């Protein structure tokens, strides 16, 4: 891999992480991993559970010391920064679900100004300015006076990101920010983070299990694999087959065309599907789930199973015609078709 800039904003060099108990080798979670991050990049840290994502984030933020190797922020080792200096360099959003009564969104965001205020924590005009800008940028203007405990999970995650924004640091680290969110909130958070990386020039690093979203939205992957840490564009991860390292289970595969994961199933035979558009794609997906290998070519020797889709122009008129025996059977939904096929497959012989 070619790195263009000589000194990256964040660089880990042959870094070993973990918690050393009383000497010995047992405390190592990861050994000899190297990676970099640049200004304005949205980096997704990917790895299976227990691969050391949280430990890596804690090491990067200086909460725990590197066991070996180095972490450098803007060219300087993380250990050479004081806690106060780090607070102006990195802001952190933990994965913990904060439940704090008697705290308004504006109060929570104002926490971001903590490293900049005096011993009494009094907010000056510029601090208040920064708080309200952060609230606005995260789309929480209508929520500023709401209590944090009354927010939905997605709104609270936004508020925590606003807090990180108010800290006005070049780096934002987030530990699984999408873990407890519903699908639409997951996308909203990713979109917000990408926007902040683009427009504010922030370097944003997040750990996540939401691979399919990360594949679309992240600029870079850091992947914790058995070999160490591989980094590259998400598309590199797909093309070079790194994603397969994420799964130790042989039944899980990655569909390079669809950009998604699937469970491998027992082969059930070949099915020929005639049709077009979305109906064809989703019918093929459904049949694949049952274990059929789907073909769409016309001029094949007749397979045991042949399905024709009609009425694609109107979702209400979609029909599936199954030609397996003498008379074709008609189904008005994919569910009905699949139920029938499952029953047939379970019959002995």
């Amino acid at each position, binding site marked *: 891999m070619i790195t263009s800039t000589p000194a990256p904003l964040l660089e880990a060099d042959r870094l070993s992480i973990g918690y050393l108990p009383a000497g010995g080798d047992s405390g190592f979670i990861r050994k000899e991993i190297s990676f970099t991050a640049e200004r304005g990049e949205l980096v997704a840290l990917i790895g299976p559970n227990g691969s050391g994502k949280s430990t890596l984030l804690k090491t990067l*933020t200086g*909460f725990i010391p590197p066991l070996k190797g180095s972490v450098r922020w803007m060219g300087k080792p993380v250990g050479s920064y004081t*806690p*106060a*200096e*780090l*607070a*102006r360099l*990195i*802001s*952190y959003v*933990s994965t*913990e679900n*904060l*439940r*704090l*009564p*008697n*705290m308004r969104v504006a*109060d929570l965001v104002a*926490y971001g100004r*903590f*490293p900049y*205020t005096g*011993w*009494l*924590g009094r907010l000056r005009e510029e601090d208040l300015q920064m708080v309200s800008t952060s609230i606005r940028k995260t789309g929480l203007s209508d929520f*500023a*006076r*709401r*209590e944090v405990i*009354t927010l939905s999970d997605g709104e609270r995650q936004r508020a925590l990101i606003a807090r990180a924004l108010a*800290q006005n640091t070049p780096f934002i680290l987030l530990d699984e920010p999408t873990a407890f969110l519903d699908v639409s909130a997951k996308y909203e958070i990713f979109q917000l983070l990408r926007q902040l990386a683009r427009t504010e020039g922030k370097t944003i690093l997040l750990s996540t299990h939401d691979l399919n979203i990360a594949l679309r939205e992240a600029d870079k992957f850091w992947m914790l694999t058995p070999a160490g840490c591989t980094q590259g564009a998400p598309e590199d991860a797909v093309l070079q087959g790194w994603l397969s390292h994420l799964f130790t289970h042989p039944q899980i595969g990655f569909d390079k065309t669809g950009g998604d994961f699937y469970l491998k199933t027992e082969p059930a035979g070949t099915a020929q599907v005639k049709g077009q558009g979305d109906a064809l794609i989703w019918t093929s997906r459904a049949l694949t789930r049952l274990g059929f290998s789907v073909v769409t070519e016309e001029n094949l020797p007749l397979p045991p199973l042949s399905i024709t889709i009609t009425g694609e122009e109107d979702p209400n008129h979609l029909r599936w015609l199954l030609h397996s025996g003498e008379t074709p059977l008609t189904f008005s939904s994919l569910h009905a078709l699949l139920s029938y096929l499952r029953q047939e497959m379970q019959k002995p012989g």
Partner: protein
Amino acid sequence: MTPINPILDRQRERGLFVLLAVLLGLFFIADILSGSVLLPAAEVLQALIHPSRAIETVKTIVLDFRLPKAITAVVAGTALSVSGLQMQTIFRNPLAGPYVLGISAGASLAVALFALGFAPLMTLGVTLSGSWPLAVVAWAGAFAVLLLVLFVSSRVNDNMTVLILGMLFSSAAGAVVSILQYFSSESMLKAFIVWTMGSLGSITTEQLTVVVPAIVAGILLALAKMKDLNAFLLGETYARSLGVPIFRSRLWIFLSASILAGTVTAFCGPIGFVGIAVPHLARVLFRTSDHRVLLPATLLLGANAMLLSDIIAQLPGLQATLPINSVTALLGIPIVIWMIIRNRKFATL
């Protein structure tokens, strides 16, 4: 929830502070007026304002007994409540307090061991120079338990375990104290039992010259760390990421809490449920989680609560004074129960 005007909040806050300050004055005078001997208000005030012109017996009762007791009530209530607030925030546990966590027990165990160990020395001609040694021993006992609780809570991330451990420790300390009593002389035994019931009235003016400066120092330390307490509310990770030097800051707060709870326990005996209940009253009244408001509020409320308890303990018509410990328990426990029901999940503050 309807948005609340911040200016109205500020006015409400100020109004509450004025109200509490006025109440404090009223309760203080009421406390001096009440006692087992009914004295005319005019004479009591005379003794306070112009001691030289007052009747000798009234002067003695007011200046040597009632005034020190009222001052003790103020400082003890303040100290216990503030240390309760500190522990609830540091351990992020709404049920934490000097009594529940076993801090008071640690202080009393240390005092008991000291008294027993010192009794033989006294026969050898060694005398205590003032009350300072007693105070220092109590602080050490309180601090030791705090460190133990911190150690356990860093191992098991479970609020209930920490509370149960506190109770176990209290019982263990109680058992050791009982054994010590078994070996002590009859006069010491009576003193001990009276001491365990808690008393505001046994403090002499000479002891007050130790108690008041110690508690003022503890409060000043607490005020100096108000901003850090806010950060601890978000948890250790956030506090660190905001640039708080965790170890040092927590040590100062523990030192403050130990001085506050230890001093009160050494000189007044273990007084329960003030430290746990008062901070919750402050949160409910002031509707904030900001320690820059909560701490002064807890301080004032704690003084008021203890004065009120003392007034109740010696209501006119009662021949003897009730043990202060019973009064605070009967007042405090309903508040704690109400708080538990209100919060349902008392997982966080």
